[in-house]
């Protein structure tokens, strides 16, 4: 019984945290662009902004264009939300605070998070709009080519910790966080970050919903609550990426003074702010350059780090 209760609390928690991540992003971006983010909605700092956005999108008229492939069009947001929230099942938020601690945790996370690609393609293809089709094609290219560096980068902590169970990875990092491994940790973390950004379609890889060419990418034809799902899915994916990143590389919840849960929250927040910082200061790269970057640079680099990690765990 308590798993049902815990999963409901987890779901509500994710949606609430993600809602306030959108608020944080607009505030942080505003501050970086020397303006103030949302300010007037919930008087002092615009705290009620995400609630207002959600309620407004709830009430919006839900247009289903006539030429769309109805099943793909309606199912796409559900698949995308499913793919991104299911990842939180195996992510431990504390020592024993986890829904189900699979011993193939990392594999499960990587498999589920690549499901989002199907949702995005369904959205793009279903809405029968030329921009959406173009963006869906681009999304498929980009996400597939970044799957491999992501997997290899995640394998490095698995090799160093000797097991795929997330909680045991964190235990293995109690003394030295994986990122502080001299040459190996930084490169693996960098590859993980770059390919996770590409997975989540964030700048500089956000060509699927590139504002300047394809208006709003695969979300062109969506309005109201369906658009809210697609929009939130991106932030849920980012939350998952920063959580997984802080667990795999930044040593989860072990840290010197503060209580364990706070450490994890602090690290994810830091990682999220880093992703935001990248988003608001870089220019988007073109599709073929993105693919070239993944195949020519990230793929061999991640193979090299994998070999290095193997050697390292063999010696020590």
């Amino acid at each position, binding site marked *: 019984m308590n798993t049902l209760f815990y999963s409901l609390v987890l779901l509500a928690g994710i949606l609430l945290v993600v809602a306030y991540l959108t608020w944080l992003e607009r505030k942080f971006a505003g501050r970086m662009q020397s303006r103030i983010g949302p300010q007037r909605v919930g008087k002092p700092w615009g705290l009620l902004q995400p609630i207002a956005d959600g309620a407004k999108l709830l009430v919006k008229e839900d247009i289903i264009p006539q*030429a769309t492939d109805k099943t793909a069009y309606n199912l796409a947001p559900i698949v995308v939300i499913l793919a991104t929230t299911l990842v939180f099942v195996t992510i431990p938020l504390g020592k024993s605070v986890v829904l189900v601690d699979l011993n193939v945790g990392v594999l499960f996370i990587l498999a589920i998070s690549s499901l989002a690609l199907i949702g995005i393609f369904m959205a793009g293809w279903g809405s029968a709009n030329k921009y959406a089709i173009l963006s869906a094609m681009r999304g498929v290219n980009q996400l597939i080519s970044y799957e491999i560096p992501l997997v290899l980068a995640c394998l490095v902590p698995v090799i160093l910790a000797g097991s795929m169970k997330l909680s045991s990875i964190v235990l293995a990092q109690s003394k030295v966080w994986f990122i502080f491994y001299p040459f190996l940790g930084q490169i693996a973390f960098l590859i993980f970050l770059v390919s996770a950004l590409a997975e989540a379609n964030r700048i500089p890889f956000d060509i699927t919903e590139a504002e300047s*060419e394809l208006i709003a990418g695969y979300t062109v034809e969506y309005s109201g609550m369906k658009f809210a799902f697609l929009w939130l899915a991106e932030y849920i994916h980012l939350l998952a990426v920063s959580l997984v990143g802080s667990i795999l590389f930044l040593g989860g919840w072990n840290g010197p003074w503060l209580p364990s849960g706070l450490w994890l929250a602090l690290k994810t927040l830091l990682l999220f702010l880093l992703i935001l910082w990248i988003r608001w200061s870089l*220019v988007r790269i073109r599709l*073929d350059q993105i693919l070239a970057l993944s195949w020519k640079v990230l793929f061999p680099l991640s193979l090299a780090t994998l070999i290095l990690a193997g050697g390292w765990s063999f010696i020590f």
Partner: protein
Amino acid sequence: MNLIAEQIETYKSIIETEGDTLLVNMGPQHPSTHGVLRLVLKLKGEEVVKIEPVIGYLHRGFEKLSENLTYIQIVPLTDRMDYLASITNELAYVLTIEKALKIEVPKKAIYLRVLTAELQRIVSHLVWLGTFGLDLGGALGGGSTLFLYCFREREIILDLFEEFSGARMMYNFNQIGGLRYQPPLDFFSKLKATLPKLKQAFAEYEEMLQENYVFKVRTKNIGVLEVSLAQRMGASGPVLRGSGLAYDIRKAYPYSGYENFEFEIPIGENGDCFDRAKVRILEMKQSLRIIQQALKGMPEGEVAIRPPVRVPTAVKVPAGETYMHIEAPRGDLGVFLVSDGTEKPYRLKWRAPSFSNLAVLPFISNGHKVADVMAILGSLDPVFGEVDR
């Protein structure tokens, strides 16, 4: 089963199968088409096979309207043509009338006209830099950071214009025979205070864009325009100078006192988006130099020669044809006036630089990706009030 067959039908109609090229129609409402331009793109996968810009969505009939307004009433109309650089429009029109009437404008008016035209060039290039960042980085990404910085600097200069004339964009500054206002007393001190801020801001943009690897990768040898094609098309201004020809009307045919200011003309090497961007950023620096010289040499005295306008039909231009062209931020802006001695022009033809600059787009964007077409369009910097007149 017929449901699926029917859906395949609908998709076939969407993707015209002429050798699997996709006909995409980037309609008049598009975040990055700088206004109202429809691009009919024939794409093969990602690459552009053929591109055909459709313009005319902002054609407001300037030439017909100006045949029914008197010479004085046309000055506020000229502000609305190239709405990013309204002072240079007024300047072109007013200089043509003064050339036709052979009026000598007082020295202070000449210096003030040069000063405000160069400030307007900086404002127009700032808006270009902001929207160029949008084209590359997308409205919600890094590009919009650059966009907001450029608009923050632009606000400083707009405050100065508001002090001088009372309006932020459509100033109605010039008048046949000089300016309409004296600058307020503290105008020059405020201007001196803002110049270092602008210089520091330009250095910041230079740093954020010029050495930026991602910016270079997105703009190096994209949309290469070689010099002879540019000349035959009539492209002018930063687009022509980006291809390596140092042709600047302020130096070639010095007008309104430009001969007693010295400044260089920046040119590019191989005429791609990067060079056009570099030329515009360096031009902004040159404009700062001109403004400083104008501030130093600002004489005292009156700003207008004509007795103040009392009766609207005061100005009559003798019959004849005059043509005068100046260096607007976008290029060679010319006014061809055919007058018949009454107080209304018989025919007023505007030679708009953006019209010819935009005509270059189909010639230089074949074989590029869709993302590059946006970068090329951004580097040509068309303003549709001027393209469609």
